[in-house]
C-alpha cells in the first residue's frame, strides 16, 4: 500500500502550485484557478487522512464534500465578480484593481 506521506507530498505540491499561481498570476481568472487547486489539495489531504485513520468515522469524507460545495459556489460567485469587475473597469488584471489603496 502506498504510504500516507506520498499522498501528503502530492497534496503539498498541489497546494504550493496553487499558491504560486494565486501569488504570481495577474489575471483574476487564473488566480481563481489557483485557489481551486489549493482547495483540491486540501481535499486530497482530508480524504487520505480519512483513509489512513479510523475508516468508520465519516468526517473526512463529509468535509471533502463540503469543500466541493464551497469551491463550486466560490467559483460561481468569484467568476460573477470577475465579470462584474470586467464590465465596470474593463480589466481583469488584479494589480489594476487597487481601490483600497490609500
Amino acid at each position, binding site marked *: 500500500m502506498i504510504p500516507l506521506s506520498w499522498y501528503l507530498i502530492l497534496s503539498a505540491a498541489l497546494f504550493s502550485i496553487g*499558491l504560486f499561481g494565486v*501569488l504570481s498570476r495577474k489575471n483574476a481568472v487564473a*488566480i481563481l484557478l489557483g485557489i481551486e487547486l489549493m482547495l483540491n489539495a486540501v481535499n486530497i489531504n482530508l480524504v487520505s487522512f480519512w483513509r489512513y485513520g479510523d475508516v468508520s468515522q465519516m468526517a473526512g469524507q463529509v468535509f471533502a464534500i463540503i469543500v466541493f460545495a464551497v469551491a463550486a459556489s466560490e467559483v460561481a460567485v468569484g467568476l460573477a465578480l470577475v465579470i462584474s469587475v470586467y464590465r465596470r473597469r474593463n480589466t481583469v488584471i*488584479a*494589480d489594476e*484593481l*487597487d481601490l*483600497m*489603496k490609500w
Partner: protein
Amino acid sequence: MTTETLIWLIPLPPILAFFLIVLFTNRNKALSHTVAIGAALLSWLGAMIVFVRAIGTPDLGKTPFASFINWIPTADTWLKIGVQIDPFGAVTLFFVAWTVLMIFLYSVGYHNYGQPAGDHDHPGLPPHGATDEHGHQVPSVEPMYSRFFAFISLFAFGMFTLVVSDNLLTLFAGWEIMGLCSYLLIGFWYAKPSARAAAVKAFMTTRVGDVFMLLGIAFLYSATGSLSYRDIFQAQVLHTLASVPTPIFGLSAAGLIGLLLFIGTIGKSAQFPLHVWLPDAMEGPTPVSAMIHAATMVSAGVYMIIRMFPLISLDPKTMTVIAFIGTFTAIFAATIAVAQNDIKRVLAYSTISQLGFMVAALGTGAYVAAAFHLVTHAFFKALLFLGSGSVIHGMEHGVLHTGDHNVDPQNMFNMGGLRKKMPITFWTFLIGGFALSGFPLLTAGFWSKDEIFSGAFNNGHLIVFITLAVAAFLTAFYTMRQITLTFLGGPRTKEAEHAHETPWTMIAPLVVLAIFAIGYGWVGIPQDFLGLHLNPSWFHEFVGSTLAVMPAESPFSWIVFGTSLVVSLGGLFFGWLAYRNVSVPEQDKLQIPLLKNKYYFDELYNVVFIKPSYWFAETFVYQWVDKGLIDGVLHLFGKAANGIGSIIRNYFDLPVINRFFGDGTAHVTQWVGKNLRPIQSGRIQQYMLVSLIVLLAIAGLLYYLLVIV
C-alpha cells in the same frame, strides 16, 4: 330672620353689586347705578331694621347681637370672626347706612347721568361738556360712570364690614378695602397727574398708620389669644394687659397696643402728623370726598379707637398722647383752613380739625362725646361736601356757559351771590355750616361739641379745653368766611352769574342730610342742661351702655355753655364781618404764606422722607448693596475662578497637556502612519505575499522555539 343673620347680610349687597357691575353691567350706565343704589338700599334697609331692633333691646350693651364662625385654624385653636352690633355699633351703622345711601343717590346727578356723552371726553379725565342739538354747551356724562358705582359699592362693603365686625381682623380688612377704594377713587380721574399723585400719597400715608396698626393687632392677638372685642374687653384680660410692662417708654402692654392702634387712626383719620393726604384727596370726585373723606372712612379711624376705648383708656400715657394729638390737630388744621380758597380744601382741613376734636375728646376720656360728635359730624360734613359739590356743579354750568375754562369753579373768590341762584343748596349748606360751627341749641354740632367741651373741662384737661375752644372759634370763623364768599353778596364772575341749581338727585340728599344735621343733636341733650331736669340724654344712655361701666354724664357748667355760645356766635359774626366786603384774594388779610402753604409740611416731608426713601431705594439698596456689594462679591468670585482657570490653562493645560501629551502623541502617531503608508498598496497579491512571508517567519520562529530549543 334673626337679627344676627341680618347683620351678616348687611355688607353683602354692595360687594355683590361690585362684582355684578365689574363683570356684567359695566357697559350699561342705567343698570349699573340701579344695581349699586339697589344694593345700598338693601343694606340701608337691613341696617335700619337692625338699628330699630337694637334700640328696642334692653341691655344691648351687655348682650349685643353677636354671632361668629371659625375662620383660620391656628395650631389647636381657631381664629374666629363674626359680627356684633352693640349700641355704639348700632348708631354707627345708622349714620353709615344713611350717608352711604344719600351719597350713592347724589352721585347719579353729580356724574351728569342722562346728559349726552362728551365731545372730547376721555376716560380718566373729568368730563368737559358736550354740545347739544341746539348748539348749547351742556354738561356731559362721566365716561367711567359704571366704574364709579362699582368702586363706591366696594367701598360701602368695606365700611359695612368694618362696622359690623366683632373683631379687629375683619375691622382691619374693611379698613384696608376702604383704603384701596380711597386710592382708586381719589385717582378716579387717573389721567390727571395731580390725581395720580394724590392717590398714591393717600394710600402710602395711611399705610404708614396701617402697618403700625397691624403690629398692634399682632401684639394684641399674641397677648390675649383673640381679637374679638368680646374676649379682649373681659375684665381680667384688660387687667392683665394693663399690668404687663413693655420696654418701650414705660408703657404697659395695653398702652403700647393702644398707641400702635392709635397710629393707625392717625393715618386713617388724617391726624397730625399724617394729615397731609386728606387735602390732596380732594382731587377725587366730590361724592367721594363726602363719603370717604368726611363721613365714613376717615371716621373709621375714630370709630376704631372709640371701639378700643376700654383697652386704650387703661394707660394714662397713651391717653395723654391721644389727647395731645387730637387737640393739636384740631387747632392746627383750623388755622390752615382759614387761608384756603378752594371750597373743598376748606372743608378738608375742617374735617381734619373736627376729627381732632373727636380724638381729643376720647383722649380726655369723654367716650360718649367722641361717639356723638362722630355721628353728627358725619351728617353735617357729608352735607357740606355734597353742598360744595353742588356749588361746583353749578359753577361748572356757568363755566360751560361762558366757555372760559380758565375760571376755577372751585375757587371761592370766583363765586359770590349764589344764594339766589341755588337756594336749596344755599339753605342746606347754611344748615351744615352752622352745625359745623356749633350754632347754639338748633344744630347737632352744638350739642356734640358742647359735650366735648364739658368732657374736657370736667375731666380737668383745661389746656385741651381752651385750645379746643379756640379751634371751635376758628371753625365758626372759616365756615362763615366760606358761606360769605360763596353765597352772600353779589356774583363776582360771569360764571357765578350763570350758575344754577342742580338736579333733584343732588338736592334730595342735601335735604335729608340737613334734617339729620339739625335733628340728630336733639337725641343727645344733656339731662341737666341749663340746670333744668330734662329726660336723660338718649344718646348718652344708649351708647354709654356699650361700656362695662356706664360713664357718668358730665355735670352742666355755665362756663362751658358760655364758651360754646361765645366761640360759635363770635366766630360766625367775625367771619361775616371780615369777609362781607372782600372780593379778591388780595383783600384777604389771612392769606399768610405760612398758612396758605399748610406750614410747608408737604415740602418738609418731601425733604425728610420721600427724597431719602428714593435715595435709599435707588442708590443705597439697589446700586450700592445689590449691584455694588453683593454682585461685586459674586463677580469677584467669578473673576477669581476665571483667573485660576486661565492660569491653569496657560501654564499647565496648554504647555503640558496640549503641547506635550496631546500634540506630542498626535505627532508621533502621524509620523508612524506616514511612514507605514506605502505598505498599503491595495494589491491583494502583495498582501498575501507579505502574509505568507510573515507566516513562514512565525512558523519558523515557533519551530525554533518549540522544537529546537
